[in-house]
């Protein structure tokens, strides 16, 4: 029952994350900024619109947004993205989680390539290249957790007595935060605010989607942020019955919105990396995770 509540809370609250980030960025820029509920308004607007399909694109293009969101919803089911356990759990679900995210990206890339646009092809190429570099960092981080907890399930990892502590915890958190920024297309990897197609990574892949399709994509992006954010937050905050910490949804929510605020601060304090330098940062995340694996 509590897991269902967590699941529902994630579905409901995920679009708040981009809103919070935007407000923090606006604050740093000396502006008031848009409402934190902006994405909800945008979703309602997009869902009320019709979609435009190019005659050059086929069913893959229409499948992309739906399949991508479906994969993310499935991933949410195995992720304890709240104060409690997850909706579903089995040994090996962390692998499934990682590959559901990969599946979501795969169908988005296919949909982008289906348009035949040189922009979208460029974006797809960048997305695949960078995510291939982010994946080792993510897997190595998971490996550290699995090694300490002795289990390949998020539930067991996060509900066991604080699996990772001290230096390895800091290293894994650093690696996961970098992955969080990269996978969610935030600065310094990508600029979610830019209108410049040539510099985009993720955004340029979804340029041709419109109306309800784009609503699914925007919502999926918020959900993905919630998912990856949950990994960071559940690791950073002391949950787990073993250590005596309360299973507190309030604490989790505080954590995930603090993460959004931290993301906003990072985005306000630095410029985007040159595209050439992105692989270096992603590889360094892998190295951090690897170091954590060695010392844990």
């Amino acid at each position, binding site marked *: 029952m509590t897991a269902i509540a967590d699941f529902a809370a994630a579905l409901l609250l995920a679009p708040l994350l981009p809103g919070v980030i935007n407000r923090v960025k606006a604050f740093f820029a000396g502006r008031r900024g848009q409402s934190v509920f902006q994405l909800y308004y945008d979703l309602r607007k997009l869902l009320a619109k019709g979609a435009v399909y190019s005659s050059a694109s086929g069913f893959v293009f229409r499948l992309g947004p739906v399949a991508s969101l479906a994969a993310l919803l499935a991933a949410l089911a195995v992720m304890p993205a709240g104060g409690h356990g997850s909706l579903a759990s089995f040994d090996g679900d962390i692998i499934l989680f990682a590959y559901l995210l990969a599946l979501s990206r795969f169908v988005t890339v296919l949909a982008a390539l289906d348009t035949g646009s040189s922009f979208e092809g460029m974006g797809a190429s960048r997305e695949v290249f960078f995510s291939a570099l982010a994946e080792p960092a993510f897997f190595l981080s998971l490996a550290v957790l699995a090694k300490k907890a002795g289990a390949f399930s998020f539930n067991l990892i996060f509900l066991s007595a604080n699996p990772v502590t001290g230096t390895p915890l800091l290293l894994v958190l650093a690696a996961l935060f970098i992955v969080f920024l990269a996978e969610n297309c935030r600065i310094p990897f990508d600029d979610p605010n*830019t209108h410049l*197609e*040539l*510099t985009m990574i993720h955004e340029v892949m979804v340029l041709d989607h419109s109306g309800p399709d784009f609503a699914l994509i925007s919502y999926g992006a918020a959900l993905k942020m919630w998912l990856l954010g949950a990994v960071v937050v559940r690791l950073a905050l002391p949950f787990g019955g073993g250590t005596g910490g309360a299973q507190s949804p309030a604490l989790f929510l505080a954590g995930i919105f603090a993460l959004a605020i931290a993301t906003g601060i990072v985005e306000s304090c630095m*410029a985007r990396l040159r*595209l050439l330098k992105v692989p270096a940062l992603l590889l360094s995340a892998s190295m951090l995770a690897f170091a954590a694996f060695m010392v844990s």
Partner: protein
Amino acid sequence: MPAMLKNSGAAALSEIERLSVESLRGRIGTSVWGGGVLLSLFALPLEGVLHLCAVLGDRKKSDIELLLAPVEGTGYPAITASVHQAHLFEREIAEQYDIRPEGHPWLKPVRFHEPYRKGAGVFGAERPGPAVWDYFRMKGEEIHEVAVGPVHAGIIEPGHFRFQCHGENVYHLEIQLGFQHRGIERATLANPARRLFYMETAAGDTTAAHATAYCRVVEALSDCKPSPRAEAARAIALELERLANHTGDMGALAGDVGYLPTMSFCGRIRGDFLNMTALLCGSRFGRGLLEEGGTRFDITPAIAAELSRRLDAAQADVAGAVGLLWKNPSVLARFEGTGAVSAETAAELGLVGPAARACGLKIDARTDFPSGHYLAGAPETVTLETGDVYARAMVRWLEMQQSLDFIRRTLPAAQGDTGLCRCGAFKPESAAVCVEEGWRGELCHVAFTDKDGKLSHYKITDPSFKNWTGLALALRGQQISDFPLCNKSFNLSYCGVDL
């Protein structure tokens, strides 16, 4: 004795040196390779014969020379073959008067309009639009072409960009404008009452500079001398325009690398500078400020005091906002080494303005060809060496500080009743030239009158006309993802080229 003009000077047609196209080509080459500048090159019908007209500038002596060469037949040997600065000028000539510059390396239309007269049929009978013309292409299995525009994601002007890429690397960029050709030069001749409005909107963000150049040309043709106060007020308008645009550019550069604070602050401060221009004349872009023979508005002591107060406030604000850029390593890492243009390339292409000064070329029309209030002392010319985005940003910032000081120095001289020197009839069969340093670089206006003292030809050369090629070359060997940043660091005008 051929006429050697100073800036904003006029000469009778009979005084202008006439020579053959072959000698003209030699003269342009000698001048340009000796450190001179090809301010403008165009064709005009004169006494029933098509003439090439070259406007050459000598920066050391501040001399401007007009040369005319009659073109017989349907073609002439291209000047571009030896002087690269003539490249776009000759394409323009070929398009307007349908004559063929023989041996031109890349003969394409500039604005895709019908030729002004029937000639050699250089571009054939069918005239496709700008984006459907042939482009330079690379071949190879892994080469791909990216086409951007003319419809862009931002609220900017239309232009078409073709990249030849291998992965993320750009090998060649070709820029094609012409989408908003309005025919300003011809409309200027046809509609004397609207001339000043056309000039103010030739390139909307360069209103003060184009309007000043036009006014000076008209004043030269009618021997009218504006009051020193009016000249000082014009100089202030020019510098305020520079400040507003440079501030906007600093913010836009920050925005392109995703650095929000400077972007937001500069967006507001640009408005503050625009409002200072509005304080002078009621228009944020300086429309209606100038008039042939002076300015329409006086700077009263109250306005001067208010302007001075606002300048102080804006200067402090902009120093803080732009200072953030230089202190942030991630911003500097994006700026440095991106889109570098060498001094040799810049000189060969004839780049102007901050883009040229960022490459180390010490050129500035305010000191090289001073006129008006700049005769009494122009802001210091700032140069950097590296020619990259960083240098173009830094040059702007240093120039802004020069401009702020200059306005403060100039303000006392501009106060009071400017008076208007009414321009009378134009001298018949004459030509006048004016060079002004707009915020993007030097722009050149040339006017010819016929035997009745009516304008018979008007030529506008916007700095963007010379600098777009610089952007194309800055991109070579760069990452395609750096194009928007490089583009913003030049921030060129589309309509200034399209006219």
